[in-house]
């Protein structure tokens, strides 16, 4: 294990990449994981482990039900338009209006519900995810991507410790997860002919019909405790192994290899966690887009988040009153092939009703 950091370095040099030009979309967005700017694979110690790193479920020793977990997020272009209100009447709608309202804008909205049941070592969650987006560029020769995607399904995972219970200084965990999903739609870039030919039939084709797909995740974690206050962790997760594909029209979920490390320090009821992940290690993208650095400051009932998601800052606040948790945060995503080209900032609100015993 002393050579674990060296093993970690080796991953960055010996991976076969594939090319993805645009936003690196995720099947699942967890509030806490997003608050940590996506640096969660080595932490994964709550219900989000079902989706992010099943090995983290090895730490679950109690029952917990998140019976109403809903999340909504929207891009700043959409939020600002809504806050300002549209001043354009139907009679004033012209080419300049379309340019002002649409071109260079990333209009995006997403709603997700993930009620879950956590048992010792096992977690099961329902996933309901709906996304709508219009991404438009170039007022001279419009490059328009329409997003309409609905994903429903079930995901189950289990995590187990390989270390004897007497070994409290170390813990090595492995996990496995499986999912069955129904998806319709995706993100489709329109050709110029399609821009000229937009009609209901085309939109229905983009939306498609529900298609079935199966996926498998796996993960591991190594936890090193230094006394009662300080711990370090390493995590590795491989989700959607071999890509979770659907029959024909719906966008696949690309395989995602994530590696990360974290440090935690706890004094009484205050805990500080610093985490760093590299996500999408299989994809040939600007290396800066893989970076995720997160900081979590947990106080009684209040948790403050901050960090850097890819190259953009993120921040958030969570209020946890045992049976109810509310989290609000802001993060930004890079929409282009390389960093600092096309930032889209999003605002997220997550509410969860839960009970544990």
């Amino acid at each position, binding site marked *: 294990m002393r050579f674990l950091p060296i093993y970690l370095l080796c991953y960055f040099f010996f991976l076969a990449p594939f090319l993805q030009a645009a936003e690196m979309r995720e099947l699942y967005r967890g509030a806490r994981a997003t608050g940590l700017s996506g640096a969660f694979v080595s932490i994964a110690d709550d219900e989000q482990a079902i989706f992010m790193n099943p090995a983290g479920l090895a730490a679950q020793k109690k029952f917990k039900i998140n019976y109403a977990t809903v999340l909504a997020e929207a891009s700043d272009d959409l939020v600002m338009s809504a806050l300002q209100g549209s001043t354009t009447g139907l009679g004033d709608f012209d080419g300049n209006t379309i340019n002002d309202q649409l071109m260079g804008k990333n209009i995006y909205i997403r709603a997700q519900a993930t009620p879950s049941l956590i048992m010792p070592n096992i977690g099961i969650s329902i996933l309901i995810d709906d996304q709508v987006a219009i991404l438009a560029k170039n007022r001279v020769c419009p490059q328009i991507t329409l997003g309409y995607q609905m994903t429903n399904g079930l995901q189950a995972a289990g995590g187990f410790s390989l270390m004897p219970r007497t070994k409290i200084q170390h813990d090595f965990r492995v996990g496995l997860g499986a999912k069955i999903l129904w998806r319709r739609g995706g993100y489709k870039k329109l050709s110029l002919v399609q821009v000229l030919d937009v009609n209901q039939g*085309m939109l229905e084709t983009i939306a498609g019909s529900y298609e079935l797909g199966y996926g498998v995740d796996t993960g591991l974690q190594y936890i090193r405790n230094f*006394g009662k206050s300080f711990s370090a962790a390493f995590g590795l997760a491989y989700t959607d192994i071999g890509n979770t594909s659907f029959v024909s029209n719906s966008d696949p979920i690309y395989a995602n290899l994530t590696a990360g490390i974290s440090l935690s320090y706890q004094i009484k009821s205050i805990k500080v966690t610093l985490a760093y992940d590299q996500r999408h290690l299989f994809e040939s993208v*600007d290396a800066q887009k893989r970076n995720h650095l997160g900081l979590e400051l947990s106080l009684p009932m209040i948790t403050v988040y901050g960090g850097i998601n890819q190259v953009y800052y993120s921040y958030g606040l969570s209020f946890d009153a045992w049976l109810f948790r509310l989290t609000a945060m802001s993060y930004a995503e890079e929409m282009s*092939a390389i960093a600092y080209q096309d930032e889209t900032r999003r605002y997220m609100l997550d509410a969860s009703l839960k009970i544990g015993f």
Partner: protein
Amino acid sequence: MSAFSWHWNFYKVLAARNLFLFSLLWGLSGCGASLLDGTTPQGKIAMIEKTNQYLNSGDCTNAIATIEDLYQSEDSDNEVRFAMASAYACEANINFFKLVMDLSSDPAALSTGFFALLAKLFPSQDIPSDKTVTAAKLATDALMAMLKPGMPIDTDEYVNFESFNPGSVVAQDRLDDANAFLLFVSMAGIGALENRYVTVDAGHKPPIPTPLDFWNDETKVTATDCTFASMVVNFADTIGSVAEAVNTPSTKASLITLQAVYQQAIFDACDEGCVTICGIASCAQCPKTLRDRTSCTGVAKDPASCAAAGIAKMVNAAWFGGTAVP
């Protein structure tokens, strides 16, 4: 050393090691060759996206500067050509949705006074700082080079054969999106060039005598005249091509109507130029080479020049709403 001191020192070493690891990983993630490198797939995508970013706000100069070197290199491909064409088209004052709305706002002008409408929509002056016509020409070249993979192309159908972006004069050899955008680029070029021939007044009618003076004499056809005629013929070709590509019944019907009115009128004009003006064999559907703006020789009986003269006669007549004034 007390046990506490030992543990604290150990924690500091461990924290330092891991912070070093964080820094090393962060630093490594930023290493590598420049990402705006057109020789790599990722770099090429990044340059195209950067070009689109500039065109969000109509920054034509930076858009052209971003993509031009890649376009003029062996790494040029159809995606690069499309980005280049849109950057040049920006300089030709094309604003897609505004143009579509402007064309739709005056349905009557589409059937009568169409050429005058284009002159109104694309003002231009024959001064060195006005690059509208040049930009339309270069955008046309880029779009003509967007060829369907595997298409057999005859030698006499190529344009710019020696360049990194050889094109075809045959619309069916090109991608649908290239023809769709060439429809708008052609309109921009026609309108801008019309403003070079005559000062278009508020009523969008030119003064007498006829603006296009090469209407009855093929030996008067200059390079600019040939460019104008070439753009008119490309406009005719692309109407038909786009009409074939769209699927919406109402849109398809409108384009087929436009095709029936303008495409046939332009092809008939070419034929009149060849047969009536020059007295040579019929050139129905216009000489293939006239799609290349450099094809006119201005020599007597040259089919491309004859067809260009016929097109000028047709445009004059359409502008005045009747027969051409000698």
